[in-house]
């Protein structure tokens, strides 16, 4: 319950920042979220004429008071979905967000099962008499008897 309250408090504390970002986006943040269509990097990393022109367009739209989502939608309309550095969180593109999480969970499960099996195998040894001393499997009873006989002859 306490954890839930902490998580909710954290989420609420971030909400005003996200809301401000949506209402009053800055060129600086959009530069890192929008790709240069001709160079495969974000606008912030690009020095191409296309990137500079898009930056000018974004600045003009910010000056007109456009919201962040409106600017992003207009860019997608002009340049296609690839203009956004992150895929949208709906439709087929949602897979891009979910698959890494699924991969991490699956890898964790595989490692967990493997570790469980490994420790379980070590923790449940069979009857001592059925195993050899060096741990290489059960000792043949007949062989064990003959070894005892041979040893008895030397005593």
């Amino acid at each position, binding site marked *: 319950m306490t954890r839930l309250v902490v998580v909710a408090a954290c989420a609420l504390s971030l909400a005003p920042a996200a809301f401000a970002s949506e209402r009053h986006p800055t060129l600086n943040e959009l530069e890192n979220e929008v790709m240069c269509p001709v160079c495969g990097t974000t606008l912030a990393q690009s020095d191409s004429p*296309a990137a500079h*022109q*898009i930056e000018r367009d974004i600045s003009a739209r910010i000056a007109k008071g456009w919201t962040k989502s409106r600017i992003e939608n*207009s860019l997608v309309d*002009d340049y*296609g979905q690839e203009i956004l550095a992150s895929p949208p969180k709906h439709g087929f593109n949602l897979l891009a967000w979910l698959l890494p999480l699924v991969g991490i969970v699956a890898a964790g499960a*595989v490692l967990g099962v493997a570790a469980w099996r490994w420790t379980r195998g070590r923790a449940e040894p069979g009857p001592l008499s059925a195993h050899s001393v060096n741990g290489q499997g059960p000792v043949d009873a007949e062989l064990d008897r003959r070894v005892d006989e041979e040893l008895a002859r030397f005593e």
Partner: protein
Amino acid sequence: MQALALVGVIGLLALLVWKLTHDPGGGVAAQLSQGKRPTAPDFTLSRLDGRGSVELASIKKPRVVDFFASWCYTCPTYSKRLEKYSREYGGRIAFIGVNTLDAGADAEKYVRRYGLTYTIVRDHGRKVLNAWGGLPIPRIFFIDRSGKVIGEMQADEDLPRFLKKLAVDA
């Protein structure tokens, strides 16, 4: 566990097949460089001036297709030359400018600035551009009456040469 691994491998193979079948692979430009004369990939794109759309295959005369953007430094030179030639050959050859990877407002300014009167359409994204060969732009292709791409402009002298050829075909 094995089933999970199998699903993973099948998924990766499916992605590989998808990539191989959807990759532009150089498009029309690559086929031309191999000496082929491919059929022009059709497109239907909306006109920049908002007056409907243009379907390439429905134009029944030789065509010139120019991919350009307003941010492209060398594009204006060729746009202006195409404008000049469109006045000379306009009745016999269809001139189509495909504005690509560009903002609509910037494209409109470009068209006004250079006084372009031939048909300009907009490629939202780069799907059409990729089918023809992708970046860099400008890219100018020449299509004969039958719809075969007979060449791409590589040097300045290609433009009048191919236009004369298309005019004869018209």
